[in-house]
């Protein structure tokens, strides 16, 4: 039987514009915060996994050089927007394999003012038509055979769901952003804490219909880190550490199984459904047992499909589920009470740990004004396009 893993300490930095901090500053702040929260030091950590996508690589060692060079194995991971969850998954695997009692996972990103993450530059055009690449293209295809921009790709993901099941109007997608922006007003670490009316959201700058600017994830700077511990080691720690520790009841990472349709439009559904099913099986819990869910709302159009993918509603029932109000913080299944990526912000490599931090905060009863009362179990989900999907189910300690 593999060893159980627990979150012993976890920390998220303030998300937003951090002009005087570089990636290593953000990672250090997150890591030192997580170590302090755990009540351990770098000398206790036996494995480190760190992720960053836009800083040039090698964050793990750069971080060690600032907060503690102890010679332990360091893994630099990259999995698009699932990078943080991948770092955590690596640390948890080391615990489960019995190779470490304490692991540290870190994600940090500088993303303020970056603009579109992909599709930022058009292909340079020469004097002749020269076929290049896997499509033998004689010109840049972005804007010619669809779009490479994320707002457009994820818009199509939501619209495809609407075509299949109906009910997915522009207004419905805007309602999702309305909820998440409302939720973030209670989150002091969110990049934005401003409530928007439905009218304001629908009349905001159109980025890629049906996603307006306030329906897109907020580019910002931020970091998040978690200290994980084996169950056997946890039992030797103080009662206070044991009381605040959060059980990792499921830790799953999936990639795309082959699907005909994913050859032309990324399929973020199949791998999320697979990850969710594996996670529920591992945890011995079902969607109805969850007190809160943090899911990957990189765009309002994406949140809708994940209600269905995570089994929060009946198959095809995401629009009705959304309209019922179930996903607001006072609903039956609070989703993204942090404000989500649309309002809390999305420093891509930090996101897959920051969502775990949010869930842990509620399970510990430490979430202040936005506390979901009596929360005992929660789920955190991320998607990195390409794709990678991380799902973690977390439970409050019984102690």
């Amino acid at each position, binding site marked *: 039987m593999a060893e159980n893993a627990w979150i012993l300490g976890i920390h998220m930095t303030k998300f937003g514009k951090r002009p005087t901090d570089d990636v290593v500053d953000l990672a250090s702040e997150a890591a030192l915060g997580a170590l302090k929260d755990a009540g351990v030091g770098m000398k206790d950590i036996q494995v480190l996994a760190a992720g960053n996508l836009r800083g040039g690589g090698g964050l793990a060692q750069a971080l060690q050089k600032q907060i503690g060079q102890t010679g332990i194995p360091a893994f630099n991971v990259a999995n698009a927007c699932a990078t943080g969850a991948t770092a955590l998954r690596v640390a948890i695997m080391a615990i489960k394999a019995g190779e470490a009692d304490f692991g540290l996972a870190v994600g940090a990103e500088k993303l303020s003012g970056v603009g579109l993450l992909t599709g930022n530059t*058009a292909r340079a055009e020469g004097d002749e038509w020269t076929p290049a690449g896997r499509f033998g293209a004689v010109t840049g295809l972005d*804007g010619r055979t669809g779009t490479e921009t994320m707002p457009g790709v994820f818009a199509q993901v939501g619209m495809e769901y609407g075509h299949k099941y109906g009910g997915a109007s522009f207004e419905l997608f805007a309602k999702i952003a309305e909820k998440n922006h409302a939720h973030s007003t209670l989150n002091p670490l969110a990049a934005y804490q401003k409530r928007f009316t439905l009218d304001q959201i629908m009349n905001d700058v159109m980025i890629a219909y049906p996603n307006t600017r306030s329906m897109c994830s907020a580019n910002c700077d931020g970091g998040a880190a978690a200290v994980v511990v084996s169950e056997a080691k946890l039992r030797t720690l103080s009662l206070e550490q044991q009381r605040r520790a959060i059980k990792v009841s499921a830790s799953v990472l999936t990639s795309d199984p082959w699907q*005909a349709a994913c050859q032309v439009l990324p399929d973020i559904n199949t791998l999320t459904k697979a990850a969710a099913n594996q996670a529920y099986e591992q945890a011995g819990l079902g969607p109805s047992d969850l007190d809160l869910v943090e899911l990957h709302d990189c765009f309002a159009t994406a949140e809708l499909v994940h209600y269905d993918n995570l089994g929060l509603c009946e198959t095809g029932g995401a629009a009705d589920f959304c309209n019922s109000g179930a996903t607001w913080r006072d609903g039956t299944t609070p989703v993204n009470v942090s404000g989500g990526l649309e309002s809390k912000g999305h420093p891509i490599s930090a996101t897959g740990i920051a969502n775990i931090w949010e869930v842990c905060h509620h399970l510990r009863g430490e979430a202040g004004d936005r506390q979901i009362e009596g929360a005992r179990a929660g789920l955190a989900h991320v998607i990195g396009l390409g794709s990678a999907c991380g799902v973690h189910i977390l439970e409050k300690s019984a102690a």
Partner: protein
Amino acid sequence: MAEPVPMVDYLILDERPHLRATLCSDCGATYFDRRNACAHCGGTSFSHQDVPTQGTLISFSIVHHAAPGIPTPFVAGIVDCDGTAARGNIINTPPDPEHVTLGMKVRLATYSLGEKAGVEAIGYGFEPA
């Protein structure tokens, strides 16, 4: 003048321009890109299959912000061509949600990308049928 060149190698410019998928000989999976092997079954033997030029728009986005040099707005679409999904812009109709709707019937259409070194390049999109 030289023969026109297609925008992509899976666009076949014969009398009736059409898309051509790469078909796995073992399992029938279809692709549009150059293949090393089949991602479904691992097979390494491929043939080609013509894709129907008529289809149904199963998803779209009207893109207003793109890289500098890419004209906006444009409509990025996914078209179900009788079982084979293809990417393509929705063209020859205004790029707004009144004219572009889920489930609309579309057909392949070609257009000129212009001329370079005396050679014309031809692109494709889908227009309302």
